[in-house]
């Protein structure tokens, strides 16, 4: 039976068919839907959201050692977090097959960088597969679990946004039930002390030779000969773009397994064509292997090393021509993403943006949008969990150099706080820092589309569970009770008071803003704890002096035209605008 699936749905299906028993992930675009689809197979696969990618990887490693097939999934930057266990796992090898899915984001559709994680496979020396569409996403996931056991290695399944989020036809198969491999204590294999590690490293080198021999004959490394003039070497979605542009007129070497690289096969292919193009997205990864083998080709001198590829770019790079679209005189106004109407972060950021002499260190999540005008309330953003620790460094540097006027406020979401922000807060408290850490608790992981996290009280598989009590957790790591403020972010006076008090102290302080994301499905606890009854705000035009202070809160429900109006459909009645109006022109209706 054929059905249409995204690459992510297909990876989940491949895991199911391949007899997977354990899956763990931290949500991140474009990888999130993999686990959201694995949960459909929860009768056969145990699955969970982990607090971060390192934990997800380590849990998958444990499941593998215990004898079942397992996987961890994450976005490209998540692999940076998980890299520590990955590199040693490459030494030890597996028991049950284990696949790490890295979903890379060329073009940075929703990421802070566009790193090419094919480099991780080469650096960690793990087998890598690169699917180019949905069918291959399913097939390669399944194959990855098998190859992992055959070669005793973790396998990196490298996806990209365009493969994750595009749909194509997929032929479904049945699940293979894999017997659990009985657990045997094996200290020499799984305890990576230096003495054992030296042996493991030798084994790893041997294993690589076996894997390369396989790569040279693997069906997924496929030459398609159509004449000897032009040959194209490519992998992943770039193959699809190349096929689109060159059609059946040229020869292709489509690489499905790109670490270890099938060098014999590549040399053979190169010997049969007169001119070679290497068409690959992002880094010169395949290209560097060809250079080392002394093969002549055309690659990154015409194919860009940045941004997402597409057929237009490939066509222009190779033929110097481009399909011209229709041109008109006007341009569409940009549609930048913004904090939603009723977003609980808006009130907090509005109050924070009015404070003078403050450096605001930010983090990864919806609230990164607090950096956009008119709020402009974030000064830095590096990586997940980095706001509190980079804020700590800044605050200590300012203190050391005698600048006591500039205060540091660090902002982080609930899920991100559990991800790695908690470590940073330990650093602040233990080392007697002085930045104000704000935990923006909107009761869910917002940016990626509402995944549960340790603060929400539910598991991925839908069971109720113990939720982390954030104020108590802060106390447990040494934060003084009187330095913890809990506020409703929609109430500007509460936020202002907490900010003023916290920023005035020369010791670690925490502000927890607590209000549910306006788009989430409210849990019974949410309904009990918060007043979520439907409300609207409206502008009394007789009282409105058009001062536009309400427009300055940046709410997409407030429309500034001849009159300033609030859109009835999108307004949620958070009343942040009402609190900034000096003429009491905004009324709750």
């Amino acid at each position, binding site marked *: 039976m054929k059905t249409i699936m995204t690459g992510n749905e297909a990876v989940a299906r491949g895991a199911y068919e391949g007899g997977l028993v354990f899956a763990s992930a931290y949500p991140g675009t474009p990888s999130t839907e993999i686990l959201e689809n694995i949960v459909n197979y929860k009768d056969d696969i145990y699955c969970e959201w982990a607090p971060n990618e390192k934990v997800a990887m380590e849990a998958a490693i444990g499941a593998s050692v215990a004898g079942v097939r397992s996987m961890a999934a994450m976005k490209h930057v998540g692999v940076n977090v998980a890299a520590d266990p990955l590199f040693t796992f490459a030494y030890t090898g597996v028991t049950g097959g284990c696949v790490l899915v890295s979903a890379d984001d060329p073009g940075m559709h929703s990421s802070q960088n566009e790193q090419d994680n094919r480099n991780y496979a080469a650096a960690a020396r793990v087998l890598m597969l690169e699917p180019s569409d949905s069918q291959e996403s399913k097939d390669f996931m399944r194959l990855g679990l098998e190859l992992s056991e055959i070669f005793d290695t973790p396998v990196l399944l490298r996806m990209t946004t365009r493969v994750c989020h595009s749909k194509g036809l997929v032929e479904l198969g049945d699940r293979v039930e894999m017997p659990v491999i009985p657990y045997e204590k094996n200290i020499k294999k799984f305890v990576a002390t230096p003495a054992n590690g030296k042996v493991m490293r030798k084994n790893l080198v041997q294993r690589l030779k076996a894997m390369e021999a396989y790569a040279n004959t693997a069906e997924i490394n496929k030459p398609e000969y159509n004449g000897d003039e032009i040959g194209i070497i490519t992998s992943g979605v770039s193959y*699809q773009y190349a096929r*689109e542009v060159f059609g059946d007129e040229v020869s292709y070497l489509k690489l499905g397994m790109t670490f270890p690289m099938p060098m014999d096969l590549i040399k053979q292919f190169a010997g049969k064509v007169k001119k070679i193009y290497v068409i690959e997205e992002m880094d010169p990864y395949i290209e560097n292997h060809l250079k080392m083998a002394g093969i002549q080709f055309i690659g990154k001198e015409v194919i860009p090393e940045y941004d997402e590829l597409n057929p*237009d770019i490939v066509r222009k790079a190779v033929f110097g021509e481009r*399909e011209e679209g229709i041109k*008109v005189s006007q341009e569409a*106004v940009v549609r930048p993403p913004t904090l939603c109407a009723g977003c609980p972060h808006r009130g907090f950021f509005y109050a924070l943006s009015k404070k003078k002499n403050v450096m605001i260190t930010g983090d990864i999540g919806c609230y990164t949008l607090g950096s956009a005008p008119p709020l402009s309330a974030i000064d830095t953003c590096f990586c997940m969990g980095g706001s509190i620790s980079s804020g700590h460094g800044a605050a200590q540097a300012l203190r050391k150099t005698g600048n006591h006027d500039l205060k540091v406020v660090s902002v982080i979401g609930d899920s991100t706080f559990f991800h790695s922000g908690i470590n940073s807060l330990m650093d602040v408290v233990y080392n007697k820092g002085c930045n104000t850490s704000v935990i923006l608790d909107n009761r869910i992981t917002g940016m990626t589309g509402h995944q549960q996290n340790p603060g929400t009280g539910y598991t991925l598989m839908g069971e109720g569970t113990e939720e982390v009590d954030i104020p108590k957790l802060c106390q447990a790591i040494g934060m003084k009770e009187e330095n913890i403020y809990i506020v409703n972010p929609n109430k500007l006076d509460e936020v202002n008071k907490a900010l003023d008090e916290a920023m005035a102290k020369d010791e670690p302080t925490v502000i927890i803003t607590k209000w549910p994301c306006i788009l989430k499905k409210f849990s019974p606890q949410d309904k009990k704890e918060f007043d979520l009854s439907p409300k609207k705000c409206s502008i009394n035009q007789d009282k409105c002096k058009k001062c536009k202070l309400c427009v300055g809160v940046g709410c997409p429900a407030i429309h500034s035209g001849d009159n300033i109006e609030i859109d009835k459909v999108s307004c949620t009645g958070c009343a942040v605008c009402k609190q900034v109006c000096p003429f009491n022109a905004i009324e709750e209706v």
Partner: protein
Amino acid sequence: MSEVKNILLVGVGGQGTILASKILSEGLVEAGYDVKMSEIHGMSQRGGNVSTQIRYGKKVYSPIVGKGEADVIVAFEKMEALRWIEYLRKDGKMVINDFEIPSVPILMGQAEYPQGILEELSENVAVLVIKAAEIAENLGNSKAMNIVLLGALVKAMNVEGVDWKKAIQNNVKKGFEELNLKAFDTGYNL
């Protein structure tokens, strides 16, 4: 590659473009085409634009369409028609919903919503303008706007052998099948 047809659905988050694309691609799959569909939604729930590209034919490689290659574009929002016009073939067709959703710079009074979009686009290409919101509201629910537009799109695609009724029934919420079938027919017969 001329036998591959390229369709773009463009709009703003929350307008139901994804559901319409899903019905479209499932209908085409059932009819035996190879289909690829690509979604681009840059944080669409937070006010961004959203687009889906559907390619169908005997064998489809790239999941995305190049500039000047779309056979039909349906714009769920007027300014999005302007944003995507470059992707239309010179002899392509455009279905435009006469419906405005101002973006944040416009809401804040920093930019003007472009004027005369329909007139300018009509001068350049074959344009069908639809007041889909009004039509859907008259049918009983303004949310069915997306299916009215889907009906008009399918007519413009001129594709045969697809059981659209089944694709709609399989994908819309229970209890709304009849409304959506009516919306589709109305859009198709405009």
